[in-house]
């Protein structure tokens, strides 16, 4: 499950950098990507 969150968060962040057209879009997508990465880390930690 943790890998799933990282698997979505990383491309989301990459897409945010590459394809967003405005600052608001870029900030939103990067914030969401970091939420995915943090949740993935928390799940990974909980499993350990």
């Amino acid at each position, binding site marked *: *499950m943790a*890998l*799933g*969150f990282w*698997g*979505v968060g990383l*491309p*989301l962040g990459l*897409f945010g950098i*590459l*394809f*967003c*057209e*405005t600052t*608001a*879009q870029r900030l*939103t*997508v990067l914030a*969401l990507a970091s*939420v*995915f990465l943090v*949740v993935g880390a928390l*799940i990974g930690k*909980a499993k350990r």
Partner: protein
Amino acid sequence: MKLAVVDWLFIGWYLVLSIAIGLYYSKRAGKSISEYFLSGRSLPWWLLGTSMVATSFSSDTPLAVTGIVVKDGVAGNWLWWNFMLGGALTVLFFAHLWRRAEVVTEVEFIAIRYSGRPARFLRGFKALYLGIPVSCITFGWVTLAMVRIIQTVFGTSGVAALAICLGLTIFYTTLSGLWGVVATDMLLFGVAMAGSIILSVVSVEKAGGIGALVDAVKAAGAATGKDYLSVIPPLGRALPLAFFIAVFVQWWAVYYPGAEPGGGGWSAQRMLAAKDPRHAVKGTLWFTVANYVIRPWPWILTALAAIVVFPGLTGAAPGEMEAAYPRMIGFLPKGLAGIIIASLFAAFMSTIESIVNLSGSFLLNDFYRPFIKKDASEKHYVAVSRVLVLIISLLGAGFSYVLGSVKMGWQLVMELSAGIGLVLLLRWYWWRVNAWSEIAALGASAVTAITLKLVPDNPVVRGLGRTLERAGFAVDAWGVKILLIVAVTTVAWMAATFLTKPDDEAKLLAFYRKVRPGGAWGPIAKLNGRSYKLQAAPFAGWALAVVMIFFLLFGLGRIIFRDWGPGAAYLAAGGLAAFGLSRIIAKMDWEGQ
């Protein structure tokens, strides 16, 4: 709309991840029925709560909210916000009892609570009714909504992609049981929410930014005579009956899938799968907060932006109002469009997988096992469960082709059980409720609903309507119908309760000892030699939960519209209520020892 290669890459990658997570759990799910349908009763609160909210977030939910906001403004959402009152009730009064009951399904509750042939009939009937027609109609409705979204975005070319997505979802759900469902739900909910947030940001930008959006929506409201931004409906000189029913009746009386009075369906399945009663309570609370506070605002913003971006939308047909949501996807840049499409697939998949797993549990646990093959091995039951889940999936997919009648069937299912909520609540807290009470409630609700469908304009309806008008209500046909169904159903089941014998003492005593519910259990508590009391804390907790959710919901809205002062005050009030509620939840003895 034509997607770029990067969009398809993201969609494909997301599907691979979801299926991999689902399949990872297939071995674990195959061990026993408890593992297949209840994840071995080991779910922590955050997993079960997220799975509940992912399931209730279907692909057509954003479209429905868009239609509501475009037609009646933000306040139109009271149509479903009222269920929050019932949700908070489930958190404080029922979630822990479900977990203590330790049944496999909502329907099996009948077997531990009621006795005799009426109980056997009721269990078999509900297993088949909820397992086949209700599940197939829900499956068909959700799939149809997704087909419409795909056709709005791509034309007919996207339907093949949807068929692949549906096939893969059924494949991993059949193999992995509830383990796969809840694990993928975590990711699906995240992707679905991310998509709706990104779309709302792009939509607001398209409308000129939040300030311009607010001004334009106010101007549109001045032209149509509506306040689209208000969270309270226009009360005027007469109180709208629909609003009165939403706030005071609907949430405890109407059985709505996903918001059943006292919990039921997929929400009960997840409470039953919790690690312990406390996790069931906390998970259900997380679901209620996520469902009513976190989900709605991105959809509402997109809907308000659609009013500005598509002039004339407020006077359009209902279907066109709803289609404004997928139409907004056309404004997304390359790369982000794929994320939004994946988010709609995620919402669709999370609902479908839960529907088929749940219906399989009813058919296996409450029909096949008690009535067809009693003492088989766990491996046999898991194999049969997989076959049943597959059959229900195929039936549901078939139902998707019956377009108009599916909608009619769905409305009928809703209306047939419109008045049964009270008996579902009281069966936990009043010893005298028996199987006949539920049978009478189901029968009376169905008969009244069908009669009102066949003869909608009759002397009783007209008389009640006039009385309500004299009492100061702005009357509408739907409100009168719901009040009549609830009144007739309540009289019928109360009469049936008092005209029939109570259940066997041994059965009631076993239930009382196992579930420890408190409430009106006088004679049984005496037999038990010990009485379990209904404490004051859940009542205070319910009030705090309601205050918390409303203040957080409306405070978030104020902040989004840059109404900083009131927004901060609302959020602070919501935070205070949350603190009080957390103290109550931490101190309560959810085991009931």
